[in-house]
C-alpha cells in the first residue's frame, strides 16, 4: 500500500470532518466510529508491509519533487518506523474512540477531533518520511498541533495558554537548533558522498544512513549537539522536561496520545533513526546516556511529589522517556532492543493510565489524588485497568512492563561500561520510585476510603473500551513476547538477540524483585520521606527568567522605533550605501566609465521621451508646491499619463494601456478620497505645511537634504544600471518563439495569461487582498473612537468626528444632473463592450482581462460618483463587489486546477474549443476558447469586484460600515 496515502489519510479525514455540512449533520457517534475505524484500518494496512519488510528490510517510495535541489517526496519504512507507525495508528484508534465519549459538546468534540487527526497525520509523516526536510516540516507540524491541543481551552483558561506557549517555546526552540543541525548534517553528507562537487546537500534519508564515516566528520560535534538539543527538548529530557507537566492542560485524550504515546517519542525516534551513523562517536552516546539517566531519576522522583493524577503521570512519562534515551545511548547500539520494548510497553500502559485519569476526571470532576478514593466499587473496570497498567509500569512479572524492565536492567548490567555502577544505581533508584508511583495510583485512588464532597456520576459505558483494550495489550503482549513482539523487533534491532516472557531466576530477576519490595517499603513510609527532599532550582525557574529577559529585550528594541519615516529612510539608505561601497560592487562596475554622457546627439523619438520625462518631473514638483490637494492629484495624473506615453514610445503598448487605465483609476480614487475628508482638515494641513514644529526651517532643510541625497543616490544607481544593461536573456527569446503556437499574437499577453499565469494569479490575489484591506480599514471601528486628549488633538477634535460630513466639498448629489446621469448610463454598456472585446481579442492586441476589469470598474465608479451610494446600489442590483470578487477568484482557481485532471499540471494550457469540437466555428470569428481565455475572464471579474470594494469603501465608508454592522 502506498505510504503517501497512509500518511495523507488522517489529514484528508480532518479536512472532511471540518467541512461545515459534515460538522453539523453527522452525529458525534458516527464521527467517532469513522475516525477510530480509519486509524484501525491504517494500522492493518501498515501491518500488511510486514512480509515485504522481512524480505528487504526497508521500503522506500520516492517521487521527484524539486530534483534540482535533490529534494524528493519520499517515504521510508523500516522496522523502526513500522513500530512507531503501529503505535501511532493502533494506540491512536483507541484514543480516538475514547475521545468521542470524553467530550459532551459535539462542536467542541469536532474541533478537537480535527486537530488530533491533523496531529496524527503529522506524526505519521515524521516517522515515515524519507527526507530530512520533510521530516523537519512534519516535526514542526507536530509542535504546532500540540500547541493548539495544549491550549485547547485557552479561551477561558490562563494555565492552558501558558502551558501551550511553554511547550511551543521549548520544542520550537529545539526545532531551530534541529534545522541548523540537519543542514550541517546534509552538507557534511554531501561532502563525504560527492567530495569533488563543491557544496551539496544530501537530504535523502537512505543516502544519509549509508554514510558510514559520518561520525568522523569535523563538524560532527556541532551538528550532533544541535540534533541532540532538538530531540532532547522534544522528548522532554532534563533540564527541558518542565514543559511536559505544563502541557497537561490539554484535554486528556490529547495528553494520552501526544504527551505519552507519540509526540514526546519523536525525539527518541530521531535518536534511534540517527544512531546507526552516529553511535560510533562517543560524544553522541555519552551525552544520550547522561541526559537519559538524569531525566530518568529526576522524573521518577518528582512523580512521587505530585498530587494531580495527570501531573504524576506526566513526570513518570518523563522518567520513562529518560530510560529509553539512555538505552539508545548505550555503547555499540546494545540498548536498542531495550529501548524499543520500553517504547511499546510504555505506550500501552501509560496511555491506559492517562485514559483512566480522564475517565475519573469526567466522572468526579477532579484529578487531585487527595480528594479521590474508594473508586474501586464505582468504577470496577477502571480499577482493573489501573491495576494491570500500574503493575506493568512497576514491572511485575507476566506483564509487558516486566519484560521492558528486565531488558533494561540486563542492558545496563552488561553494556554500560565504564559507567555501570552509576547507571545501575540510577536505574534501580528510578525503578523503585516508579513502582512506588504505581502502587500509589492503585491504592490512593481506588482502595483507600472515599473522600467527602466529591460528586460521582457514571461516565458513558463505551468510554471504557479504549483503556480496557490497552490494558489487555499490556497483559497479553507480556506473555506473547515471542510470537508478536520478537518478529517486530527483529526488523528494527541491528543485532541478533534473545527475548522471552520470563528469562528464569537469574541475576536480573532478583534485582527486579528487590526493586518491587523496596518500593513497597517506600510506599508505606512515602509521606515523611518524600516531602523532606527538595530540588534547589527548577527548569521552570530558568524558563521564567529567560522569558522575562526576552520581554526586557523586546521593550528595549521597541525604544529604537521612533515612528518617523525620515529615521527609517536614513537607516535604510545608510545601510544600502555602506554595503554597496564596502562590497566594492560599484567601483568594479563603473571602472573605466564616465557617468556623464559624451554623445549629446538625440533623434526625434528621444526628444519626445525627454519631453515626457521633463513633464513628469515638472508635474512632480508642482505636487509639492501647489496648495490645493485636488490640483496635486491632477498633477499626479499627469505624471502617470506621461509615463504611459513613454511606455507607448518604448514599444510597450500593453503596458501603456494598463498604465493609462490604472492612473486614471488612481487619480479618480485620490479625488474621491479628498471628497471624504473635510475641507477644514485639509485647509489646516496646507496652511501649516511649511511651518516646522518650532516655527523654524530646520525640519524643511533636513527633509530636503534627505530626499535630495536619496534622489542623487537613485540617479547614480539607475544610471549605472542603465549603462550596464545586461544582454537579453534567452528566456524572452523562448517566449517570443513559442507564442505563435498558442495562437496568440501579443507576446506580452501570452506571458501574462499563459507562460507566467501563476504570477498573474498571485498578482490578482494580492490585488483583491489589498481591496479587502481597504474594506477592513474603513468599515471597522467607529470614527472618532479614539478621542484626542493632547492640546493639538482638542483643537482637531472640534472639527473632527462631530462635524464630519458637514463641509464635505464634493457632495454626491451635486454631481447628479440630467446630463451626468445620461452619460453614466451610456458609458457603462460601452465600457462592458470594450471590456469584452479586450478579453476576447486580448491575444491579438493590447488589453487583457485586467484592463477589461479596470475599464468596467471605471464606468461603475462613475455611477457611484454621479448617483451616490444608495441610488447606484438600487440601479445596479447585480453589482455586489464582494460576491463578484469571490466568483472571479473561484473561476480562476478552478480553471487553474482543471488541467491537473487532464494531466497537464497546475495552470496547464487547455484548448476547450478543440475538446468541444467548435474550433473552426469560433475560429471564424478570430477567437480561441482556451484556458487562457477563461483565466482572462476570471481576472476581469475579480478586478471589477476588487475595484468595486475599494470604491465603495473609500467613497462611502459610513454606508459600508453600517452595512457590515447589520
Amino acid at each position: 500500500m502506498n505510504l503517501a496515502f497512509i500518511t495523507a489519510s488522517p489529514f484528508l479525514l480532518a479536512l472532511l470532518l471540518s467541512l461545515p455540512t459534515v460538522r453539523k449533520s453527522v452525529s458525534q457517534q458516527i464521527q467517532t466510529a469513522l475516525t477510530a475505524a480509519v486509524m484501525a484500518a491504517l494500522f492493518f494496512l501498515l501491518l500488511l508491509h510486514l512480509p515485504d519488510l522481512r524480505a528487504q528490510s526497508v521500503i522506500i517510495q520516492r517521487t521527484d519533487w524539486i530534483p534540482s535541489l535533490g529534494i524528493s517526496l519520499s517515504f521510508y519504512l523500516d522496522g523502526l518506523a513500522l513500530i512507531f507507525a503501529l503505535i501511532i495508528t493502533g494506540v491512536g484508534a483507541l484514543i480516538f474512540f475514547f475521545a468521542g465519549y470524553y467530550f459532551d459538546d459535539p462542536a467542541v468534540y469536532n474541533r478537537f477531533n480535527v486537530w488530533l487527526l491533523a496531529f496524527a497525520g503529522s506524526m505519521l509523516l515524521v516517522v515515515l518520511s524519507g527526507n530530512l526536510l520533510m521530516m523537519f516540516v512534519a516535526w514542526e507540524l507536530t509542535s504546532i498541533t500540540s500547541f493548539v491541543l495544549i491550549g485547547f481551552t485557552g479561551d477561558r483558561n490562563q494555565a492552558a495558554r501558558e502551558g501551550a506557549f511553554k511547550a511551543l517555546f521549548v520544542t520550537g526552540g529545539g526545532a531551530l537548533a534541529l534545522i541548523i543541525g540537519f543542514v550541517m548534517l546534509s552538507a557534511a553528507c554531501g561532502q563525504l558522498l560527492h567530495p569533488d562537487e563543491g557544496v551539496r546537500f544530501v537530504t535523502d534519508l537512505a543516502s544519509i544512513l549509508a554514510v558510514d564515516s559520518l561520525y568522523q566528520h569535523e563538524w560532527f560535534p556541532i551538528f550532533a549537539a544541535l540534533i541532540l538539543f532538538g530531540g532532547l527538548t522534544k522528548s522532554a529530557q532534563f533540564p527541558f522536561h518542565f514543559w511536559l507537566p505544563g502541557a497537561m492542560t490539554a484535554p486528556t485524550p490529547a495528553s494520552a496520545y501526544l504527551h505519552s504515546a507519540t509526540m514526546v517519542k519523536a525525539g527518541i525516534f530521531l535518536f534511534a533513526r540517527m544512531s546507526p551513523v552516529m553511535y560510533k562517536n562517543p560524544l553522541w552516546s555519552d551525552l544520550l546516556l547522561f541526559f537519559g539517566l538524569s531525566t530518568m531519576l529526576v522524573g521518577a522522583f518528582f512523580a512521587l511529589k505530585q498530587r494531580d493524577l495527570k501531573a504524576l503521570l506526566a513526570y513518570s512519562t518523563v522518567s520513562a522517556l529518560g530510560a529509553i534515551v539512555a538505552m539508545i545511548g548505550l555503547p555499540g547500539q546494545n540498548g536498542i532492543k531495550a529501548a524499543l520494548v520500553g517504547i511499546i510497553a510504555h505506550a500501552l500502559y501509560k496511555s491506559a493510565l492517562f485514559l483512566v485519569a480522564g475517565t475519573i476526571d469526567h466522572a468526579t470532576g477532579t484529578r487531585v489524588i487527595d480528594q479521590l478514593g474508594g473508586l474501586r466499587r464505582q468504577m470496577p473496570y477502571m480499577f482493573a485497568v489501573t491495576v494491570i497498567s500500574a503493575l506493568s509500569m512497576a514491572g511485575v512479572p507476566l506483564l509487558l512492563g516486566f519484560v521492558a524492565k528486565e531488558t533494561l536492567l540486563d542492558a545496563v548490567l552488561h553494556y554500560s561500561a565504564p559507567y555501570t555502577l552509576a547507571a545501575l544505581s540510577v536505574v534501580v533508584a528510578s525503578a523503585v520510585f516508579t513502582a512506588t508511583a504505581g502502587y500509589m495510583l492503585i491504592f490512593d485512588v481506588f482502595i483507600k476510603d472515599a473522600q467527602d464532597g466529591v460528586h460521582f456520576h457514571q461516565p458513558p459505558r463505551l468510554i471504557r473500551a479504549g483503556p480496557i483494550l490497552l490494558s489487555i495489550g499490556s497483559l497479553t503482549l507480556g506473555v506473547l513476547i515471542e510470537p508478536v513482539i520478537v518478529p517486530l523487533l527483529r526488523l528494527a534491532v541491528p543485532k541478533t538477540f534473545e527475548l522471552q516472557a520470563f528469562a528464569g531466576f537469574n541475576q536480573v530477576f532478583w534485582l527486579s524483585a528487590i526493586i518491587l519490595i523496596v518500593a513497597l517499603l517506600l510506599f508505606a513510609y512515602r509521606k515523611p520521606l518524600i516531602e523532606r527532599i527538595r530540588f534547589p532550582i527548577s527548569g521552570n525557574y530558568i524558563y521564567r527568567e529567560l522569558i522575562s529577559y526576552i520581554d526586557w529585550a523586546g521593550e528595549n528594541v521597541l525604544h529604537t522605533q521612533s515612528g518617523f519615516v525620515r529615521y527609517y529612510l536614513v537607516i535604510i539608505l545608510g545601510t544600502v550605501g555602506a554595503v554597496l561601497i564596502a562590497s566594492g560592487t560599484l567601483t568594479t562596475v563603473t571602472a573605466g566609465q564616465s557617468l556623464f554622457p559624451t554623445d549629446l546627439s538625440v533623434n526625434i523619438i528621444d526628444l519626445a521621451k525627454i519631453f515626457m520625462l521633463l513633464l513628469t518631473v515638472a508635474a512632480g514638483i508642482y505636487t509639492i508646491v501647489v496648495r490645493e490637494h485636488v490640483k496635486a492629484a491632477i498633477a499626479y495624473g499627469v505624471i502617470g499619463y506621461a509615463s504611459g506615453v513613454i511606455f507607448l514610445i518604448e514599444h510597450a503598448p500593453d503596458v501603456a494601456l494598463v498604465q493609462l487605465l490604472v492612473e486614471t483609476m488612481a487619480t479618480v480614487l485620490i479625488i474621491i478620497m479628498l471628497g471624504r475628508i473635510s475641507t477644514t482638515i485639509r485647509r489646516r494641513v496646507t496652511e501649516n505645511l511649511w511651518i516646522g514644529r518650532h516655527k523654524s526651517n530646520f525640519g524643511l532643510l533636513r527633509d530636503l537634504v534627505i530626499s535630495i541625497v536619496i534622489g542623487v543616490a537613485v540617479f547614480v544607481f539607475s544610471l549605472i544600471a542603465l549603462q550596464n544593461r545586461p544582454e537579453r536573456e534567452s528566456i524572452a527569446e523562448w517566449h517570443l518563439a513559442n507564442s505563435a503556437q498558442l495562437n496568440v499574437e501579443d507576446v506580452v499577453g501570452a506571458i501574462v495569461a499563459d507562460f507566467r499565469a501563476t504570477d498573474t494569479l498571485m498578482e490578482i490575489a494580492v490585488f483583491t487582498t489589498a481591496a479587502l484591506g481597504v474594506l477592513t480599514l474603513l468599515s471597522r471601528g467607529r470614527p472618532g473612537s479614539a478621542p484626542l486628549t493632547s492640546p493639538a488633538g482638542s483643537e482637531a477634535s472640534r472639527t473632527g468626528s462631530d462635524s464630519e460630513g458637514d463641509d464635505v466639498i464634493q457632495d454626491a448629489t451635486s454631481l447628479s444632473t440630467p446630463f451626468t446621469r445620461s452619460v453614466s448610463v451610456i458609458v457603462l454598456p460601452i465600457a462592458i463592450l470594450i471590456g469584452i472585446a479586450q478579453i476576447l481579442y486580448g491575444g491579438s492586441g493590447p488589453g487583457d482581462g485586467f484592463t477589461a476589469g479596470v475599464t468596467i470598474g471605471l464606468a461603475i465608479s462613475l455611477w457611484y460618483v454621479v448617483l451616490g451610494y444608495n441610488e447606484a446600489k438600487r440601479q445596479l442590483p447585480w453589482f455586489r463587489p464582494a460576491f463578484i470578487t469571490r466568483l472571479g477568484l473561484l473561476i480562476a482557481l478552478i480553471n487553474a486546477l482543471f488541467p491537473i485532471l487532464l494531466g497537464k499540471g497546475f495552470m496547464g494550457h487547455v484548448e476547450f474549443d478543440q475538446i468541444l469540437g467548435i474550433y473552426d466555428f469560433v475560429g471564424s470569428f478570430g477567437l480561441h476558447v482556451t484556458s487562457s481565455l477563461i483565466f482572462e475572464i476570471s481576472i476581469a471579474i475579480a478586478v471589477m469586484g476588487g475595484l468595486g470594494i475599494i470604491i465603495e469603501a473609500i467613497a462611502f465608508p459610513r454606508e459600508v460600515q453600517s452595512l457590515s454592522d447589520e
Partner: protein
Amino acid sequence: MIDFMFAAAIGALFSIGVFQLLRRDLIKAAIGFAILFSAINLFFVAVGAFEGEFAPYVRNVEEGRSVSDPLIQALILTAIVVSFGSLSLVLGLVNMVSRRYGTVDSNDVNKLKH
C-alpha cells in the same frame, strides 16, 4: 544621452516622492508614495525595453524585426497592478486617519503616541 535623462528623471521623481513622504501632509504623502511607484516602473521600462524597435508581437517577430523585451513588460504589468493595490491601501489609511483623528497632519497624529 537618453540613459542619462532617464536616470535623472527617475532620481528627481524619487526625490520628490521621498520629500512628500517626509512632510506633514498625509494626503501629499500618499501622492508621493504613488510618484515613487511611477519612478520604479519607469526604471524597469528603461532597463528593459530599449533595444527593440517594434512592439513584441508575433508578426513582428516573424518578419524578423527587432522587438522589445516582452518579459520585462509583463513584469511591469504586474508591478503596476500591485502598486495600484498598495496605493488604494494607503488612501484607505489616510481616509481612516482623517475620520478617526480629525486630522491629516502627521505631526498631530504623532503627538497621539505620547
